[in-house]
């Protein structure tokens, strides 16, 4: 009897596709990824958006300029304060009003607190995605302190709507400074514990190191921004390139890692929390006292023209582009959301990876789906 010997190259496996999402426990929200699979290998990724589309840009055309701000809370809800600030800055830039120093300092402190809260939540969820459930509990415990501070001053825990054109909604609560000063040493003492718990863990290291490589060239050409691009060594921090609010007065450095793998993106965010704390420390002791609202008219009308303001949110470069035709509501509003461009990079770096690694890669991308799908 003749024996048939199969060569492994002759064996053809069949490609098939599976849907990851829109209701997937490992995806952060309603993101649907159509994966073309060959065994365990991901051959192609096609994101399908539209599950949480609320046409916020179109809604903005029917709202007055003060009313736009509460809609931007609902884009990237984890960095809601920075989104509010971006719209407020764009309107102020168009109307050429100078806001009081106190407002600038308050906005910067609030922005950095929101950034820390966002990174803490990301750290918890990231650990959970790669199989460490404890991180979720620890991160939420510390994030709760920021939420309490926000609740006391802004009246809301997540969608603050705190910045208004020309100022902020409320003055700082009398407890604010003390509570922030309590929080800073607390977070400085727990981040080393986080590192010990998760960063040094050998299983975590093996899932992170040399997985999901994104080259600097790809990061630039695909429009990545924020910690995703900085993990590949691309300097793109809007806070340094064009400092807004009180950021020109503070001293901090941009975190850059050259490796471009999962661990680099992870480290960028962990180190950024220290930088944010450093910014808050410089501002918290001498908050100027010159009012919380610049004089604006009750009905805001922008002059004719096009206005662009970019800020650095927790996920990257957030842009607000307003086209005004001189009426009380904008002709067109465009939001440049960081998550959408970062999703492009996932399509590139998720190819030829294992399915399990794709979860880890998308965890380090830190997606917030309402931001991608406005």
């Amino acid at each position, binding site marked *: 009897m003749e024996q048939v010997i199969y060569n492994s190259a002759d064996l053809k496996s069949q490609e098939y596709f599976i849907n990851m999402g829109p209701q997937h426990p490992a995806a952060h929200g309603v993101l649907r990824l159509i994966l073309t699979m060959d065994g365990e290998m991901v051959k192609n990724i096609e994101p399908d958006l539209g599950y949480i589309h609320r046409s916020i840009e179109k809604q903005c055309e029917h*709202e*007055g300029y*003060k*009313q736009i*701000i*509460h*809609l931007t*809370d609902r884009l990237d809800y984890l960095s809601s304060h920075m989104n509010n600030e971006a719209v407020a800055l764009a309107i102020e830039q168009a109307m050429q009003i100078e806001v009081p120093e106190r407002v600038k300092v308050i906005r910067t402190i609030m922005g950095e607190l929101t950034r820390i809260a966002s990174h803490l939540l990301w750290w918890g969820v990231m650990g959970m995605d790669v199989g460490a459930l*404890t991180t979720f509990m620890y991160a939420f*415990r510390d994030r*709760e302190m920021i939420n*309490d501070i926000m*609740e*006391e*001053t*802004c*009246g*809301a825990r997540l*969608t603050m*709507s705190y910045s208004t054109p020309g100022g902020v*909604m*409320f003055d700082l*609560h009398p407890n604010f400074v003390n509570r922030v000063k309590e929080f800073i040493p607390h977070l400085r003492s727990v981040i080393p*514990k986080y590192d*010990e*718990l*998760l960063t*040094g*863990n*050998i*299983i975590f290291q093996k899932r992170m190191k040399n997985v999901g490589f994104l080259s600097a060239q790809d990061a630039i050409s695909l429009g990545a921004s924020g910690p995703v691009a900085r993990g590949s060594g691309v300097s793109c921090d809007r806070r340094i390139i064009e400092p807004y609010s009180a950021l020109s007065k503070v001293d901090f450095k941009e975190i850059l890692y050259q490796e471009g793998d999962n661990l680099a993106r992870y480290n960028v965010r962990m180190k950024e929390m220290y930088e944010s704390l450093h910014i808050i420390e410089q501002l918290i002791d001498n908050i100027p006292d010159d009012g919380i609202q610049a004089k604006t008219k009750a009905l805001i009308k922008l002059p004719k023209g096009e206005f662009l303001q970019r800020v650095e949110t927790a996920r990257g470069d957030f842009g607000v582009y307003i086209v005004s035709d001189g009426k009380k509501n904008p002709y067109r509003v465009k939001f440049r959301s960081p998550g959408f461009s970062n999703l492009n990079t996932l399509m590139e770096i998720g190819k030829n990876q294992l399915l399990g690694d794709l979860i880890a890669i998308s965890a380090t991308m830190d997606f917030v789906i309402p931001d991608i799908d406005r």
Partner: protein
Amino acid sequence: MSYFGDIFGGIRSLLTGMKITGGYFFPSIIGRKYTITRQYPEEPAVVAERFKGEVVMWHNENNEHRCTGCQACEIACPNGTIEIIWDRVLNEETGKKVKVIDKHIYHLGMCTMCNLCIQACPTNAIMWSTNFHNATFDRSQLTKVLNHPGSKLMTGVEE
């Protein structure tokens, strides 16, 4: 060699992690030292005084409110949460027709707690309540009439 090295490395990092979690776990079960969770329905929730729960209208003991029906809140609202039904009623003392609210309707289900109505109110008639127990079995119960039945405008409050 690296095979056994990996095993020992794995056990060591496992123990390092257990040290952190154990450091929280044992003091918590013995003395509740690091316990931060609250037994919510038994213990009342701590809510900040500025918490934006729902919009309410302030009434004094004579069932009088401060709302003149100027509709500034209705115009300021971004999504039509507030509707005011009003009428002009003849004031017998001055002989002029005065705007009087019939119903100040507030759709809690649509409200995004943006604070613009309260900022816009010239007479401080509406304000935030910290009540957050807003869950109902029926959506129609989320439509509220803020002025109490039979309430009047407080004397001396003008637009």
